[in-house]
């Protein structure tokens, strides 16, 4: 096992800088390890590495309670993420849900409830190669993978995760829910016009299996209504509303509201 942070062949000044940048001072033992080309030794699941792919390194913190694994995967980003989702599903993992629904980078949370949480981020290098990062928490305290799913406010709602448009900046402003309804809102700065923005989100609804029911268009707002069947065969209606800011051009308040049948009109 070679830990880069104690590797004497490395320039001491570089090693010191990297160590200080990576050490978490909340970890009283300051024992961050950066393992070269290796998976963590006590990884509680099997992580296959396909031919042509490689483990670049792993970072281990908090005496193994927090790990990061960095892989170079010889596949496109979507394919690479799907491959590892499938590999973990076969080992008893299920998809988790952070409970927020506007995100900047494609990310998937996989849970073995009460045991381990794995956040997977697939970052395309090009059409055939992906930098894959897995952030692993053991036990999964403070995540939706906790026993009982305590952090999941609305576990039944099939709220789609919406990825922000390229070049946009988000500010999530929270949401509310209960009794079969959930809403989430965020402010978004983007150079896309409202129709482009609507199309951008619509494609994500469609990918998540939602069916477009209606479109709404007003002078300073645009919206769409979506329908989906949930995991227990229950019906949901989603309304996506994009309101123009009265103060700043190219700034939008985006709200997603879900309601469960039989409320649906």
């Amino acid at each position, binding site marked *: 096992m070679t830990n880069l942070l104690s590797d004497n062949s*490395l*320039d001491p*000044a*570089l090693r*010191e*800088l*990297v160590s*200080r*940048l990576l050490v978490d*001072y909340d970890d009283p033992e300051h024992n961050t390890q*950066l393992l*070269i080309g290796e998976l963590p030794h006590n990884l509680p699941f099997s992580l296959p590495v396909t031919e042509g792919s490689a483990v*670049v*390194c792993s*970072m281990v913190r908090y005496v193994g309670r927090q790990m*990061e694994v*960095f892989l170079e995967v010889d596949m496109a*980003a979507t394919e690479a993420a799907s491959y590892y989702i499938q590999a973990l599903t076969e080992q008893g993992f299920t998809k988790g849900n952070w409970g927020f629904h506007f995100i*900047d*980078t494609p990310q998937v949370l996989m849970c073995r409830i009460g045991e381990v949480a794995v956040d997977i*981020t697939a*970052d*395309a*290098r090009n059409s055939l190669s992906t*930098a894959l*990062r897995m952030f692993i928490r053991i036990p999964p305290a403070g995540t939706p993978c906790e026993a009982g799913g305590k952090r999941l406010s609305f576990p039944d709602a099939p709220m789609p995760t919406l990825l922000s448009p390229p*070049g946009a*900046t988000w*500010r999530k*402003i*929270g949401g*509310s829910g209960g*009794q*079969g*309804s959930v*809403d989430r809102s965020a*402010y978004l*700065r983007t150079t896309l016009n409202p129709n482009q923005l609507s199309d951008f989100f619509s494609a994500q609804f469609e990918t998540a299996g939602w069916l477009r029911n209606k479109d*709404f268009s*007003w*002078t*300073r*707002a645009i*919206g769409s*209504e979506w329908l989906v069947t949930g995991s227990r065969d229950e019906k949901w209606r989603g*309304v996506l*509303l994009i*309101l*123009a*800011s*009265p*103060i*700043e051009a190219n*700034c939008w*308040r985006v709200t997603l*509201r879900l*309601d469960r049948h*039989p*409320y649906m*009109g």
Partner: protein
Amino acid sequence: MQSDREFEISGSIADETTQRILSHVFWGQSWSRTKKVKLIVGELLDDLPFHLPIPTDTTIIGTLVNYGDITVYSVLLDIYMSPQDIPEFYSNELQTQGFAPSDAVVEPHHRHLHRADGVSFTVNASDIENAPSAVRMQILSGLKRESLMSRDEMLTLGRYWVDRVVLAAPPGIEHRRGVGSGGGVSGATSRHEAHSALPPNELMSLYYPQLQERGWHFVDMVHIDMAAWSTWQVKDSSGNLGMGVLTILAKPNEPGVWSLELSVECFY
């Protein structure tokens, strides 16, 4: 998605494997939409967004820079001063360069300051026994205004506008006030409930006079069968602007019952 992960080390020579590892690790920890990551060993960056004073005998460990729409500089130093004196030193020095303290409560080893041109500065000093203080600084440039306001400032502004409006029952409407309230990172909210057979757009219009009397300026209203949203502009005496939204939503499974949410976001 990031298609080009540019990574550079200066001030040290690292082999290809080390470069590859550090590229993955620091890109993995970078902010979203970072365009380039640079690691500078033993030196400061030449073009920091302001003059960073360095006390005598300080050892510069190095700088990590994440270039993007917002550029983030992490500066690591060993300073021969007590960890209590270091935040005070930088607070005094940077206030002469136009920075203002951001926090109402000052912590002994930490200080956060910001400047109106979109630059913020955070310093943390920690003790190392029988050694200089290990100091971490984070400098952000390219920030929008709301990022420069402290959480207290934003909540106060949002709270001010929400609290100025105590939604009351319009004529003929049963209205329950204050069924909830809250505040996010950039604003404040109050929640109410109304009982009415009116459609949401008509119900909405009954609340306009109360908002207008309190200085809210109507911008627009949109509605569908089960919801209506009206947007408003608010402005305080200092010229700070906020976007107000009154939302009326049908409560599922309770015909004729509407939840109302009044919010102000100081995103600007």
